[in-house]
């Protein structure tokens, strides 16, 4: 206290100033060895953000792992993982923080290797600007193009092209200008609002924070000057109000609030609001926060709204003005960046998370893939790791969205694999597909219940799954004979037989198997709708696809029957000689041999073919059905 009072006041004034500084989030990207990590290390070092103890350990690390002789290797400041330091590469994005007198910065240092592109996209998704590095000796590489394309796709509008290692080309103006011109030419259609090229040397600091004497011909800003100048206007406030409900706040019976972060626009008490999906409307009663009710709240604020009326709202709903609603559809076109080792399978159900809502979704069509080098549109049947395409997506229920180009917060989604729980894709919605709104369901007078009643049975699909040679078809055939003898209306869809007609255009790749099961599932659904007990005999090796078929049926209509035969036993039977041929390499993608079988985790019926014969198994199934009232 005492003598330090003025000093303390000085700090407070400094802090107030510091608090008013704007924030810029940017990424560094580009090809491997272009010097991204070195550049960030240099920025941290030059802005005096390296503490003494960190510098001491950096010097030690540099001697051990450094790639620049006896000098300090600034990249080691950012490459924080042991594997990164050992290999001298960047694997994952690192977030670093620094400030100048004018601005605060959060920089994401992203990896240059093509296999870590998803980590680069992670960094880019929250950035306002990108510094794209090019090694002056190498010029523009495929990875420069790929990263620039992804930067553009994710909606970053401000780019600095850092032509690094300019010292290694003798600070040659012509080299710099040739690279800058080439870059401008291919980035012309990327929608960048600003693009400034800077010649620099990250290792020696030329034109990073201070102007270099080595490039007297360069009259533009230093890298840091440019980063301080970039004008990031927050356009979200001018957009219509959007808030995805994250959490329903119910401390007691008298309070029901809807907590969420305002994605865009402004909200005030008294404003009319609508629930995008249901169309229900009300008015905002109060904007509740821990610090008191607010007269107004805008984009980026985390608030809790109370409404005048008790309308049905739950997590995942989007609140909006009644006259400026987002689009609501179960089909839309989107850019998709695929981020998983396992390729995209059209028709396979994935989880889709948009805002605070998670639904099941499938890619129904790949319109085209984009070649990241030439930016040409290519025909494609799938998307592999790090590939980008334009696809049609269909969701299990309608979702509310805006085009990503208009609103990053309401137009972005991720896809999650249901089996592995991995995030497999990043999506940016382009536009809704009107088809969903214009093709209405024709209501019919005679219903499924009517058709079932006349047959005196409860319709269902008996889905026999298991390895080839497990005995599925034999058991299914016996079950149908028994049911038929009992006067029940049945039909048997046999996977092998269907391949002569309904599915004869399909092969045995993962993608074709998904489509095969989808078609058989749809056919089975029609039979169930007709009141029939339908038996399906299909290897159907993937859990996700059986689950998708199950979800197309009503409650209790899908009876999964796992014909559980160990591989060795099925192979020893080998009734069709298929295992032998698969072992000889004459059949590819054979389930159990070079393609996996995912056993059901909780089938309705499990048949242990080691313990019972086919007749006993059939009796087991019929008894199960009779007990549960399927047979009238």
């Amino acid at each position, binding site marked *: 206290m005492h003598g330090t009072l003025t000093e303390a006041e000085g700090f407070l004034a400094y802090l107030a100033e510091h608090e008013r500084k704007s924030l810029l989030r940017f990424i560094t990207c580009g090809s491997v060895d272009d010097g991204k990590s070195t550049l960030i290390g240099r920025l941290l070092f030059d802005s005096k953000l390296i503490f003494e103890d960190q510098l001491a350990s950096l010097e030690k690390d540099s001697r051990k792992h450094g790639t620049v002789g006896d000098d300090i290797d600034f990249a080691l400041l950012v490459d924080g*993982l042991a594997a990164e330091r050992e290999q001298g590469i960047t694997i994952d994005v690192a977030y670093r923080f620094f400030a100048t007198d004018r601005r605060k910065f959060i920089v994401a240092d992203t990896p240059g290797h093509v296999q870590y592109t998803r980590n680069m996209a992670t960094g880019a998704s929250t950035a306002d600007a990108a510094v794209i590095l090019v090694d002056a000796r190498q010029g523009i590489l495929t990875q420069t193009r790929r990263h620039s394309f992804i930067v553009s796709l994710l909606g970053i509008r401000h780019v600095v092209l850092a032509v690094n290692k300019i010292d290694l080309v003798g600070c040659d103006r012509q080299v710099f200008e040739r690279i800058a011109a080439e870059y401008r030419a291919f980035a012309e259609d990327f929608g960048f609002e600003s693009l400034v090229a800077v010649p620099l040397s990250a290792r020696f600091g030329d034109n990073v924070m201070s102007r270099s004497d080595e490039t007297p011909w360069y009259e533009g800003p230093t890298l840091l000057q440019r980063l301080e100048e970039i004008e990031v206007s927050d356009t979200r406030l001018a957009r219509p109000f959007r808030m995805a409900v994250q959490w329903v706040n119910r401390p007691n019976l008298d309070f029901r609030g809807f907590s969420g972060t305002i994605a865009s626009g402004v909200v005030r008490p008294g404003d009319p609001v609508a629930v995008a999906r249901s169309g229900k409307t009300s008015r905002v009663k109060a904007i509740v926060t821990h610090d008191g009710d607010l007269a107004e709240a805008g984009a980026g604020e985390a608030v809790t709204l109370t409404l005048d009326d008790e309308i049905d709202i739950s997590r995942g709903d989007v609140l909006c003005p009644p006259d400026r609603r987002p689009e609501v559809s179960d089909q839309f076109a989107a850019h998709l960046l695929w981020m998983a080792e396992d390729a995209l399978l059209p028709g396979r159900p994935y989880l889709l998370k948009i805002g605070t809502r998670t639904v099941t979704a499938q890619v129904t069509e790949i319109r085209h893939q984009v070649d990241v080098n030439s930016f040409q549109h290519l025909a494609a049947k799938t998307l592999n790791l790090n590939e980008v395409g334009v696809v049609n997506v269909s969701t299990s229920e309608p979702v509310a969205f805006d085009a990503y180009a208009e609103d990053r917060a309401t137009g972005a989604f991720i896809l999650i694999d249901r089996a592995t729980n991995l995030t497999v894709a990043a999506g940016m919605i382009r536009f809704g597909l009107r088809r969903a709104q214009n093709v209405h369901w024709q209501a019919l007078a005679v219903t499924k219940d009517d058709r079932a009643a006349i047959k005196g049975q409860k319709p269902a699909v008996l889905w026999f799954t298991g390895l080839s040679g497990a005995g599925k078809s034999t058991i299914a055939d016996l079950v149908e004979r028994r049911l038929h003898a009992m006067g029940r209306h049945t039909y048997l869809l046999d996977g092998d037989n269907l391949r002569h007609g309904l599915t004869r255009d399909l092969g045995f790749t993962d993608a074709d198997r998904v489509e095969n099961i989808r078609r058989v599932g749809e056919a089975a659904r029609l039979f169930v709708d007709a009141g029939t007990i339908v038996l399906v005999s299909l290897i159907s090796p993937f859990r996700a696809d059986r689950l998708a078929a199950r979800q197309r049926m009503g409650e209790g209509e899908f009876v999964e029957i796992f014909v559980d035969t160990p591989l060795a036993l099925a192979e020893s039977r080998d009734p069709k000689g298929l295992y032998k041929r698969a072992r000889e390499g004459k059949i590819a993608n054979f389930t159990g041999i070079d393609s996996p079988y995912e056993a059901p985790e909780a089938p309705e019926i499990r048949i242990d073919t080691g313990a019972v014969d086919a007749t006993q198994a059939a009796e087991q199934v019929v008894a199960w059905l009779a007990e549960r009232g399927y047979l009238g």
Partner: protein
Amino acid sequence: MSNRLSHLRRLEAEAIEIMREVAAEFSNPVMLYSIGKDSSVMLHLAMKAFHPSKPPFPLLHVDTTWKFREMIAFRDETVRRLGLDLIVHTNRDGVAQGVTPFTHGSSHYTTVMKTEALKAALSKHGFDVAFGGARRDEEKSRAKERIFSFRTENHVWDPKNQRPELWNLYNTRVRRGESIRAFPLSNWTELDIWQYILAEQIPIVPLYFAADRPVVERDGQLIMVDDERLPLRAGETPHMKRVRFRTLGCYPLTAAVESDAATLPDIVGEMLVARTSERAGRLIDHDEAASMEKKKREGYF
């Protein structure tokens, strides 16, 4: 209204969004409460995030039995004041085996009394998500970690194979036994923390403020003699020094710094001219190169 949220308000809103997402998506959340300044900020944000409800999860403190006495007093007072549930977990086997920072070395001690204890507590209660107050500016491997950071059934972090994390669309899917560590303060810096404490008048443990305290000088570090259990080496006599702590933990492993900073503005002022990072006062980080990453991979927070 001003058309741009201030830096601190942006950080605050981001942290609140993360907390609400956790509360909405997981079945059994818990908040790691270490009693330090970052935990104080995190707890304050949790009170804001769910207002007028209470935070819908308990706090968990892993007590090594070697925390500063003032920390424990502050912890109990805080929990009482806010009316929250607190779970205190201590590795009783470790205590029974006499594992202390002096007998077994700081590395083994940390593994047994902190990492193992934490994993045991998480498994025992079946928490599928745990909040931690770690910040990316603290340390190199933390700078690499996702906000929603996946842990295997054995609480292991695989830094080479993290899930992509785009926008604010956090993947919260885990199988039984797996879990997520959620870090709402990821994007805060040490300066942000202090500024926020100042702006919001958040109570913190008095040890952060300079006072005359009994210390011994050991291996170039100032260690406070918080109770009679600290074995004194030959030639060591505790003497009073005006010191404070930049970071808090187990008292034998946490070095004090000489300081006159007795108020929040003083502390922030001191920080602005500091030439060493806050983790310099943490003895366990210096044990071996890349030690934080190794500990984190093993399940440490």
